């Protein structure tokens, strides 16, 4: 019994880490856009979904897997850049509700277009690594090569984003453009380009996430692929703090683990309730997020 319980706990933690890595990546992509342009992007799931269809669709023409992944990323960069330039740029300085309404509309349009072009029938994508759990003494341990790949990918992407922001000239300009656009322009920073770049990076992180989600045997690639995941990623971003990339990934992973336990020990119907409860409580206790400094910003 003891060993049964231990193994159940371990399995839940490992399974939760995998789901959490995905939530963390969605949260990270939301944070990138929020930091750059103060827009909550409700189409954050749909934009990468579109890029994933464009890139992974080439698998049918026998393109190699990793080349298709590369095409997804390029498509994501293009979609991110176009969206910022055409849809979002006219909204800067307008009431906060405007970008929200526009992005929700954009989400609906993208999903409808995807359904019209590629139909709503799920397409299975090959997983690059085996999705079958490793076994210990005949029992599955809750971790497969593919889920390990998901966790490692989330950490590598987060590490790359943090390195970019903290240690590079480009990252310095990205941060400065978000914090003090006018001063940045006076110092010669091409702020418009930096904002576009923020959206491009965010959509590319989203595409990595969408590929991982779509590679899951049970979901496959559908136009609504990211809808459910987006909700959890959104909660993770709000709890971790919309300004903190590390906070977003950390709270995504924590959320994944907690919800796995809820699903296993309570009831899988309670998952969304608990997730929303966590959101409400954390917004009451720390409205700015757990990992952001809660000081008012000097303008």
């Amino acid at each position, binding site marked *: 019994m003891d060993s049964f319980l231990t193994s159940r706990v371990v399995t839940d933690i490992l399974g939760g880490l995998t789901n959490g890595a995905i939530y963390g990546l969605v949260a990270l992509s939301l944070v990138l856009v929020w930091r750059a342009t103060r827009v909550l992007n409700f189409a954050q799931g749909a934009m990468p979904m579109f890029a994933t269809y464009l890139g992974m669709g080439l698998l049918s023409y026998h393109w190699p897997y990793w080349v298709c992944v590369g095409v997804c990323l390029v498509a994501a960069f293009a979609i991110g850049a176009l969206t910022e330039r055409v849809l979002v740029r006219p909204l800067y300085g307008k009431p906060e509700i405007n970008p929200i309404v526009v992005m929700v509309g954009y989400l609906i349009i993208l999903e409808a277009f995807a359904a019209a072009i590629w139909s709503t029938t799920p397409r299975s994508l090959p997983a690059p690594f085996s999705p079958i759990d490793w076994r210990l003494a005949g029992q599955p341990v809750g971790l497969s090569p593919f889920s390990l790949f998901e966790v490692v990918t989330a950490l590598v992407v987060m590490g790359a984003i943090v390195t970019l922001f903290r240690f590079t*000239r480009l990252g*310095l300009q990205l941060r400065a453009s978000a*914090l003090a656009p006018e*001063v940045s*322009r006076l110092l010669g920073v091409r702020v418009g380009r930096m904002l576009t770049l923020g959206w491009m990076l965010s959509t590319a992180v989203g595409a990595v996430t969408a590929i991982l989600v779509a590679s899951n045997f049970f979901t496959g690639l559908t136009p609504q692929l990211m809808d459910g995941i987006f909700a959890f990623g959104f909660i993770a971003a709000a709890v971790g703090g919309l300004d903190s990339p590390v906070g977003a990934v950390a709270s995504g992973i924590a959320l994944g683990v907690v919800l796995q336990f809820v699903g296993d020990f309570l009831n899988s119907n309670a998952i969304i309730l608990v997730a929303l409860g966590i959101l409400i409580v954390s917004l009451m206790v720390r409205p700015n997020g757990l990992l952001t400094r809660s000081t008012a910003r000097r303008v």
Partner: protein
Amino acid sequence: MITVERLTVAFGAVYALREVSLRAETGKITAVLGANGAGKTTLLRTISGLVAPKSGTVSLDERVLTRRKPEEIARLGVGHVPEGRGVIAEFTVEENLRLGAIVARVPLADGLDEQYEAFPVLGQRRKQHAAKLSGGERQMLAMARALIARPSVLLLDEPSLGLAPLVTAQLMATVAELCATRDLTVVLVEQNASSALRIAHHAVVLNVGTVVADAPAAEVAADERLRQYYLGMVE
């Protein structure tokens, strides 16, 4: 040299500048003086491209700056230290300087060394967040951040604002020295007319958007009428 010709700026129906013309010579400090609302800050913001004029032109040497973007004007060698300094509080001292060096043509390390030598206190506090600096230190950081790009023009907006008289005097001495040693064109906007006139070569007095005096600094300083009516310098 900065040449401003018949510059008119309006915000809706309100005119901030009307047909303002002036010239800031290379290697000289040109003080722009006047009371609150005279249009001094608007003048600097128009020179650096943040505000689009209704009519008139701004040129740097032979090149017209009007209708260029602020980031382009910065890249052409115009450094603007805005009112309130514009130091990014969330950045460390060094990050602020690195940001200033984005458009510099000299290697970053040389630029940093140069600024830390000119402003030793910044070197001591390089890893600290700018939020922790005093008012005088922030002003130094803002100036160093503009200078690290090696601009040919330096626009200073109210550098003495909120500083103690002794700190202001030191700051003005630094500006005078920089101007002389680097052949900088300095446009110094100040409400604190007496400390600005002490170092300026030339002075322009603005009153509700128009030029009321344009003369060597010594003449403006000696003009009783200007002192009383526009500069608030009553003995």
